[in-house]
């Protein structure tokens, strides 16, 4: 843990050639606003033996439960335009952090500040209404993201074309296969021009051709300089492709916050094998 920190300090003093790109980007963005800030964030899940006990606990504090610390005293800040990958094994707290950035989970302690329109693909789905058609869901999602109907109309064709659903776009989402859902979810999220784009393992679904298309789209998105990308994946290679910075998590704690190459190396060395 300490080693990782030391490495990082060493590097800021003497950046090697490979890092120049990332550093250059960082330097030019020093005047950029902070997109995401975590200050001593801790998230504990309360686990009850049954739902009955959970209901009881609402009225009576003394109900027995165990606590699981999913995220433990994590602090970091991300500037606009940065691309950051969270690396860690299952249960390291990656998804919980993404949920807190998205705003669908609340920290038990600490503060979180997020600026800008957040578009998230959590757990492979974008959150669709099962009963509504794909097209209606595009509108609903757009409206919930704060877009005007006109703006959605402008993007509708692009989304429909990107999702490659053909006739199915006017069928209820409940009839979709998981691949189709993921495609539509990705298309909607990427086309509403997010300012903070969160991808949670979402690129691992769909066929190879669609995956390539997604990667290309993500690239195009982060080229635009004010889009912040937050990425969670098990595939280090994909993370390396997109992200300049990596945070390694272990059992809810941050063990390493540095550039992606170092973080990946640290992860592979310390954690992947045990």
């Amino acid at each position: 843990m300490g080693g990782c920190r030391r490495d990082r300090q060493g590097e800021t003093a003497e950046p090697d050639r490979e890092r120049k790109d990332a550093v250059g980007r960082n330097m030019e963005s020093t005047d950029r606003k902070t997109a995401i800030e975590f200050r001593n964030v801790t998230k504990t899940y309360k686990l009850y033996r049954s739902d009955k006990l959970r209901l009881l606990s609402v009225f009576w504090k003394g109900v027995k439960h165990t606590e699981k610390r999913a995220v433990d005293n994590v602090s970091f800040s991300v500037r606009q335009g940065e691309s950051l990958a969270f690396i860690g094994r299952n249960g390291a707290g990656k998804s919980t952090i993404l949920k807190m950035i998205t705003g669908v989970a609340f920290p038990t302690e600490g503060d979180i500040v997020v600026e800008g329109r957040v578009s998230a693909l959590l757990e492979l789905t974008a959150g669709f209404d099962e009963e509504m058609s794909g097209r209606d869901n595009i509108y609903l999602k757009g409206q919930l993201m704060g877009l005007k109907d006109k703006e959605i109309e402008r993007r509708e064709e692009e989304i429909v074309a990107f999702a490659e659903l053909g006739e199915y776009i006017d069928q209820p989402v409940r009839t979709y296969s998981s691949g189709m859902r993921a495609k539509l979810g990705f298309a909607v999220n990427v086309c509403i021009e997010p300012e903070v784009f969160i991808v949670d393992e979402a690129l691992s679904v769909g066929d190879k051709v669609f995956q390539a298309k997604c990667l290309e789209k993500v690239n195009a998105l982060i080229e635009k300089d004010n889009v912040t990308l937050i990425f969670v994946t098990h595939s280090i290679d994909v993370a390396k492709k997109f992200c300049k910075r990596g945070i390694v998590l272990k059992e809810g704690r941050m063990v390493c916050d540095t550039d992606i190459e170092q973080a990946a190396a640290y992860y592979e060395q310390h954690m992947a094998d045990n």
Partner: protein
Amino acid sequence: MKTLFGILRDHFIWKHQIFKLAKSDIIKTYSGTAFGWGWALVKPTVTIVVFWFVLTVGFRAGATASGDPYILWLIAGLIPWFYMDEMITGGTSAYLTYSYLITKMKFPVSTITTFIGISKLIVHLFLMIIVLIIFAVYGYYPDIYLLQLPLYMALMFIFFSNWALFAAMLSAISKDFMNFVVSFVTAVFWLSGILFDVRMINTPWIRTVLMFNPVTFCAEGYRDVFLYKVWIWEEPVKLLTFSCTFVVMVILAVWSYKKLYKEIPDVL
């Protein structure tokens, strides 16, 4: 108090989305069926006709205290009940129906039951127009007392929106609560003054207990408007008891929201 203002602020900020979601909630309920909007009419009609048949032909109860046609008396009480029924059960399962709004995107949890309430209210307004036509056919034309109708609607809407917020919170935490509500909704229906006239009960304490029942208050309110022609302030005891339950409901809703809103996304 701060929580209450927080909830109201969420409603203000997200007002456009709330109405959009209310609209899509209605469309979702009735589209995709060949008969479409007709279903909004069929269910209440069937229920009213069945009750009318059972009560007048079966139980020969066809008399009202005021001497008005029994069918009108039944309609005036049952139409608001349909709304309350939808809110009691539909409100309770709100977060399970709309879990994607809670777990997949940033959306103020407190507004979910509100837009469901609005969606049901719009269906209710649509039924109300038909009710007005039926009353006109019987020779009961709209008069000055109709001015009270929006007031009763608003009270009913706000009260049951608060109920829905409270119930949705608890049932998201545990399905036990939802089963509890579903089991007791029939009891609430029969124990409220919907199918009988509370005024005709001779035991005073039962009458008082029933007056605390907000369902009775709403059903009676509608009958005051359409049949009894009574102003809301003419029965201060009733108004006072309802105000008490109203305040208690708001407190419960805000309390449950404050206590649970952070936990809801984790358990859904």
